[in-house]
């Protein structure tokens, strides 16, 4: 187990190295940042000074090595617009994103598994068909489109929930989001949950159907056990394994994928930070958020892998 943990850790670091390399080479294609920072009329000596300061006059390989070293030590550069360290801005926004993601994932897990079980138990019924069509719609609708429709329906037409305007206090605690700001949280959370609900429901359904047709379920049924006991005691426990993996990978995907939702609902998270940086051509911030998201993704997947190997003895350790 320890060897497995270490090997996985080593591999995760290799992945992060790859991610950093990809990001470096993509960002290397950008037009000259010194020009971007100074605008059209910058004089040549100022530009040269900035270029020197940013290390842009060095050869590519040396910049690459510098970039790797800096990023590894947590230095993501400074924002072109606010001149603050990018990592500080990201960490400041992280609680809002975490709250949004975790709430959405909680909702998605409960609803997704519930719908999935119902669909599987009543498979090929009208209920099953309707929920599976809705699940497919949930997968098909881009998050920003769904977000806008939700805003129109609940925010503008019915006026039940506020559609934006949430301001985060500097010293806000995590629980305060749920306690005092739930009405701001409701719409973005629901919008964000839609896709994972659909996917979890589909995975639960197919895995449940698999298990329900197995021999030991037939045995349990023939023993005269009630349907409730068969489903919840015997089938569900085995059917949930692939669901747990799905939830794990979706937690990672959501934490990094809430960007559009945050942007549309003005939720003050990491995603809004990244998207606000796009029209300002604030490349260090964009680059920093991409890198941060990828690292978080790798870390969460690492933890999920380890947990999964611990929980499920069927997983081979090599």
């Amino acid at each position, binding site marked *: 187990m320890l060897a497995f943990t270490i090997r996985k850790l080593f591999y995760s670091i*290799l*992945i*992060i190295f*790859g*991610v950093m*390399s*990809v*990001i470096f080479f*993509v*960002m*290397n*294609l*950008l*037009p000259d940042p010194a020009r971007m920072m100074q605008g059209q009329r910058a004089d040549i000596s100022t530009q040269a000074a900035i270029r020197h300061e940013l290390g842009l006059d060095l050869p590519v390989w040396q910049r690459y090595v510098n970039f790797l070293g800096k990023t590894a030590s947590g230095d993501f550069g400074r924002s072109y617009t606010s001149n603050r360290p990018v990592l500080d801005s990201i960490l400041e926004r992280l609680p809002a994103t975490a709250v949004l993601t975790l709430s959405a994932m909680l909702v998605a897990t409960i609803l997704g598994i519930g719908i999935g079980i119902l669909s599987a138990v009543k498979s*090929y019924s009208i209920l099953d068909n309707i929920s599976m*069509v809705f699940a*497919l*719609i949930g*997968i*098909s*609708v*881009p998050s*920003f*489109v769904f977000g*806008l*429709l939700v*805003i*129109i329906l609940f*925010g*503008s037409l019915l006026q039940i929930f506020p*559609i*934006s305007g949430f301001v985060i206090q500097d010293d806000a605690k995590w629980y305060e989001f749920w306690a005092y700001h739930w009405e701001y949280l409701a719409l973005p959370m629901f919008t964000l949950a839609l896709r994972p609900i659909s996917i979890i429901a589909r995975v639960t359904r197919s895995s449940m159907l698999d298990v329900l047709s197995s021999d030991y379920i037939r045995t349990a049924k023939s023993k005269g056990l009630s349907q409730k006991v068969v489903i919840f005691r015997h089938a569900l426990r085995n059917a949930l394994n692939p669901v747990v993996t799905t939830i794990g990978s979706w937690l990672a*995907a959501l934490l*990094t*994928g809430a*960007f*559009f939702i945050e942007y*549309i609902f003005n939720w003050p998270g990491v995603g809004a930070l*990244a*998207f606000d940086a*796009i*029209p300002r051509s604030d*490349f260090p911030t*964009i*680059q920093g*958020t*991409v890198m941060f*998201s*990828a690292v978080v*993704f*790798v870390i969460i*997947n690492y933890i999920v892998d380890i947990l999964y190997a611990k929980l499920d003895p069927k997983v081979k350790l090599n």
Partner: protein
Amino acid sequence: MAEIPIKQLAEAEIPTEKSRSLWYYSWKRLRRNRLAMAGFYVTILIILIAIFAGVLAPQDPNLQILEYTTKPSGFKGNVILRTNDIPNQDPVPIPIQSFLVSNGEITMITDDGSTRKLPVSKLAGSSESQWHKEPHFYLGTDRYGRDILSRLVFGARVSLTVAFFSELLSIVIGVLFGALAGFYRGWVDESVSWLTNVFWSIPPILLVISISIALGLGFVQTVFAIGITGWPDMARIVRGQFFSLRETEYVEATRALGLGNMRTIFRHILPNAIGPIIVIATAGFATAIIYEASLSFLGLGVQPPTSTWGQMIYDGYGYIAAGSNWGLTIYPALAIMLAVFAFNLFGDGLRDAFDPKLNR
């Protein structure tokens, strides 16, 4: 006993049920899946709309009539077209209430109630049907007075072409990497798997955004950004297929015949992996539509004045808080949803059709 000629014997052995190809059975299974067929027909319809956008669109999608901004659905305009003072430019529309032609001069009551005169020679065209139009804006107009329906129709073209070419790029990269990894295994497989995992770890929409910012904005850049991001799924599936197909007897036979690796890979293994490739490509196509819309929603992607669905949504987005003109957001939103949903329905159906084990 007379000897039966071999030819006759062979003919006698032909089974009554003709053996058919994988395609025949897959198509038969697909035909039985009503939802998938619905998705298929809608997909075909959208493709036809994209191809014949020029014929189907009721108006010029880029014609701005600034007097007709944000008109509701079903609005009927009334315009006189005059020739543009700048040569070789489109005629200029003048919205009117009524007009009268006499003595080589046209007198118009314009939209704001004032009277305006123009010599007939300035009109675009010689007959009234050429210079007097009553455009019908079935879905209303946007904030520049452009026809929403026409922009939606032309938006389908952008959406589908970007999705098509980017998916093509993803297929080429994914199949190449997947095939090499699955066929050669060893360090080739390790490196490809590593690269796949690297691309998987970067949130796809952020990767698409980063690449298109880095490359600049435009059609080719957008195709490239989406295509580069989409290949890992394809690589994974192709790799898996090659892993198992490589062990089959007919592949062993190609080795016994001394065929080169490349020929074995592309002529013998790849055609047998085509089913899963098509399934993944369909799903990838739907995803590419979403990415294109997302990019243009953010003002990246294909640039104005070309109409794209994402950009239309962004234009309408500003009106939502004001609580009016929902159509500006809802129509393009429905277009995206319909297109992606149809592709996913079709793709799901294809997956079931190519995989007999899942036979319902």
